C-alpha cells in the first residue's frame, strides 16, 4: 500500500476534477482506524429524526397487522378480489418484492466473480436489501391464503395422512425457491459480515459489544480465517447465481403454466428475471442515495459508484424493453381474439392509463441514464430510479390483474378494485422494509470495511502527464 501525497499544481489547474481526487486521496491516506471510525460513528448517532421515522414506520406496520388480522377473521372477501380476479394486489406486490430482491446477488455475487472493484462499498447494502425484500415477499404467500391457519399443509413433512404436498404445483416451487434464496442471501450477508463484526467488537462496549461479540463468533483475522472466508465467499457467489435466476423464473411460471390468456407465454421467465434486476438495481440506487445522505457516507459511496450503478440500471432497462417487445410483438402479430382484446384494453381501453404509465416510467429512465450528469447527481438519480420502480410495480399489476379480468368467455369477465385491507397490507410491507433497513443501518456497518481496506491495498496513484490517476492492481 502506498501513500502518495497530493501535489499542488494539478489541483490548481484542474479545479473541476478536484473533488474526485480529494476523496480518493483522502481515502488513500486514511489510517485504518480512521476508516473504522468513519463507518462506525454514524451508526451510533440516532437523533430525533431517526426515532420519529422509526415511530412512523412502526405505526404503519402495526396498522398493517391489524388489517391482516381483520382479513383472516372476516375472510378473503375483505380484500378487493372477486371472481374472476382471484389474485390482486397481494400477488402483484409479492412479485414486486421478489423482483427487488434480485439486485443484492446481482451486485455482490456477479460483480464479485467479475472482480468489479467498484462493487466493494455497496455490496452490504445490496445484500441487506435482498434479505429484507425477500422477507416482505415471503409474507404474501401466507397473507393471500384463504385459510392461513392451514399453511403448514404446504410443508413437506410425513404427516398422519401420509399426504405430501403437490410438487407439480408452481406454488410449491415458489415456496422452496424463495425459502432457499432467503437462506442463501442471509448467510451470504452474514458470512461477509463476520470480520466487520470483530472490528466493531473492538470499538464498542455495552450492549453493542455483547451483540457484536456474539456475531463475530470469535473472529481474530488470522491468515487461515481469511483464507477460509475467501473460499466460502467464492463458493457462495457461484452457488447463489443460479438460485437468483431460478427464483423469479419460478415466480413467472406461477402465471405462465396456466392457460390464462397472456400468461401462457414462454418468454415470461427471462422477462421476469430481467425486470427483477431492473427494478432491483433501481431500488438499490435509490436506497444508497438516501442512506448516503442520512449517514454521511459520501466518502465511501462516491459518484463513480453511482455512475457505474446507473450504467448497470440502464443496461438492465434496455434488456427489459427488449424482452417486453419480444413478447409483445408475438402476441400482437398472432392476433388471437382474446389476446387482441387484452392488448386493445391496454393500448386504448380502460387499462390505457396504467399501460402508458408503465411504458413511460420504464423507458424514460433509460434515456435519462444515458447522461453522466443524471447518473452522478444524487437527486436526479434518485428520481429516475424511483420512477423505474413505479413503472415496474404497474407492470406487475397489469400482468396479474389486467389478464385475470379477461378470459375466453366474455360473460365471465370482471373488474377489480383494491380494498383498504389490501392497501394497508401492501403499505405494511413497504414500511416494514424501510423499518428493517433503518434499524439495520444503525446496527450493522453499512459499508463492508474490510472489503474497502482490501480494495485499498490495490490502489496506487500513477501520474499520467499532468494527471494523477488511480490504478488498481490485479492480485490473487
Amino acid at each position, binding site marked *: 500500500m502506498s501513500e502518495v501525497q497530493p501535489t499542488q499544481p494539478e489541483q490548481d489547474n484542474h479545479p473541476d476534477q478536484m473533488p474526485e481526487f480529494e476523496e480518493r486521496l483522502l481515502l488513500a491516506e486514511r489510517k485504518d482506524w480512521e476508516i473504522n471510525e468513519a463507518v462506525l460513528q454514524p451508526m451510533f448517532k440516532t437523533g430525533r429524526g431517526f426515532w420519529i421515522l422509526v415511530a412512523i414506520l412502526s405505526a404503519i406496520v402495526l396498522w398493517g397487522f391489524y388489517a391482516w388480522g381483520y382479513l383472516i377473521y372476516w375472510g378473503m372477501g375483505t380484500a378487493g378480489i372477486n371472481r374472476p380476479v382471484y389474485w390482486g394486489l397481494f400477488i402483484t406486490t409479492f412479485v414486486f418484492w421478489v423482483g427487488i430482491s434480485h439486485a443484492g446477488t446481482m451486485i455482490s455475487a456477479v460483480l464479485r466473480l467479475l472482480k468489479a472493484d467498484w462493487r466493494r462499498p455497496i455490496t452490504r447494502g445490496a445484500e441487506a436489501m435482498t434479505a429484507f425484500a425477500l422477507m416482505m415477499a415471503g409474507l404474501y404467500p401466507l397473507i393471500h391464503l384463504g385459510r392461513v391457519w392451514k399453511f403448514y399443509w404446504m410443508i413437506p413433512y410425513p404427516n398422519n395422512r401420509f399426504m405430501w404436498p*403437490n410438487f407439480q404445483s408452481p406454488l410449491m416451487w415458489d415456496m422452496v425457491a424463495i425459502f*432457499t434464496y432467503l437462506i442463501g442471501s442471509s448467510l451470504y450477508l452474514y458470512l461477509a459480515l463476520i470480520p466487520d463484526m470483530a472490528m466493531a467488537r473492538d470499538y464498542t462496549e455495552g450492549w453493542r459489544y455483547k451483540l457484536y461479540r456474539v456475531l463475530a463468533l*470469535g473472529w481474530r483475522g488470522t491468515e487461515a480465517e481469511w483464507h*477460509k472466508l475467501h473460499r*466460502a465467499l467464492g*463458493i457462495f457467489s457461484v452457488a447463489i447465481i443460479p438460485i437468483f435466476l431460478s427464483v423469479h423464473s419460478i415466480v413467472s411460471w406461477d402465471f405462465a403454466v396456466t392457460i390464462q390468456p397472456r400468461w401462457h407465454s414462454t418468454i415470461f421467465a427471462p422477462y421476469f428475471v430481467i425486470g427483477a434486476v431492473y427494478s432491483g438495481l433501481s431500488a438499490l440506487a435509490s436506497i444508497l442515495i438516501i442512506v448516503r445522505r442520512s449517514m454521511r457516507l459520501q466518502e465511501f459511496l462516491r459518484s463513480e459508484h453511482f455512475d457505474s450503478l446507473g450504467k448497470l440500471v440502464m443496461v438492465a432497462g434496455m434488456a427489459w424493453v427488449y424482452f417486453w417487445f419480444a413478447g409483445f410483438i408475438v402476441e400482437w402479430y398472432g392476433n388471437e381474439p382474446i389476446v387482441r382484446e387484452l392488448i386493445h384494453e391496454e393500448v386504448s381501453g380502460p387499462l390505457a392509463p396504467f399501460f402508458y404509465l408503465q411504458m413511460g416510467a420504464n423507458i424514460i429512465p433509460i434515456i435519462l441514464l444515458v447522461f453522466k450528469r443524471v447518473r452522478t447527481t444524487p437527486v436526479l438519480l434518485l428520481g429516475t430510479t424511483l420512477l423505474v420502480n413505479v413503472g415496474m410495480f404497474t407492470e406487475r399489476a397489469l400482468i396479474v390483474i389486467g389478464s385475470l379480468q379477461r378470459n375466453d368467455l366474455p360473460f365471465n369477465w370482471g373488474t377489480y378494485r383494491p380494498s383498504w385491507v389490501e392497501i394497508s397490507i401492501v403499505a405494511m410491507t413497504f414500511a416494514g422494509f424501510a423499518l428493517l433497513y433503518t434499524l439495520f443501518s444503525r446496527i450493522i456497518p453499512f459499508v463492508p470495511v474490510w472489503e474497502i481496506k482490501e480494495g485499498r491495498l490495490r490502489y496506487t496513484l500513477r501520474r499520467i502527464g499532468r494527471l494523477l490517476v488511480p490504478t488498481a492492481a490485479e492480485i490473487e
Partner: protein
Amino acid sequence: MDKTNNLIALFHESTDTAEAIDELHTLGIDDEKMVVITGVPYPHGALGRQVEWLTLPYIVAVGALAGFLFGLFLAVITPHLYRLDIGGHPPVGFPPAAIIIFVFTMMATIVSTFLGVLWEMNFPRFGPAPYHKLVTAGHLAVLLEYPATLDSQVRQVLESHKAHHIGEPERMAL
C-alpha cells in the same frame, strides 16, 4: 522440545512483517509456530507463508449430494406414496421434478458451505485467545511460539523490523 516462549509483535506495515517472517524462518521457527493476525486480508504469499489445504469443497460436495437426494425423494418418491391423479399429468413429470431437485440441491449447497466454513474455523469460539485490538486499527500482529533459547535472536529480529508492543501475548475474551 524443552520450554518454549510465546510472543506477540505488532507491525505497522506488511513489507516489514514479511521480511521479519522470512528471518524467523531462517532462525528455524516454522510456519505452524507462527500466526499472523491482520485486519485486512492480504493476498496469498504476501507475507511469505504457504497456503493450507481445505476440506471445505468436500463438505460442500457432500451437502449438495444430500440435497439432491432429498429433492429426488420429494419430487419422485412422494407422489407414489400417496397417488393422486391431477389434470392428466403423470404422477411424476420431468420439469417439476427438475425444479424441485435443483432447488433443494442448491439449498443444501449453500447451507453446507456455511456450516462447513464455520466448522473449519471451528467457530463459534468465544473463549479467550491471544489477540491485540490494534489489529483492527491496521496493525499486523505476529504470534510466535519458539524455544526459549532463541529468545534474544527473535526479539532482535523483530525490533530490527520496526516491531512494537513486543511481549507476552495477552489472552482476551473474544
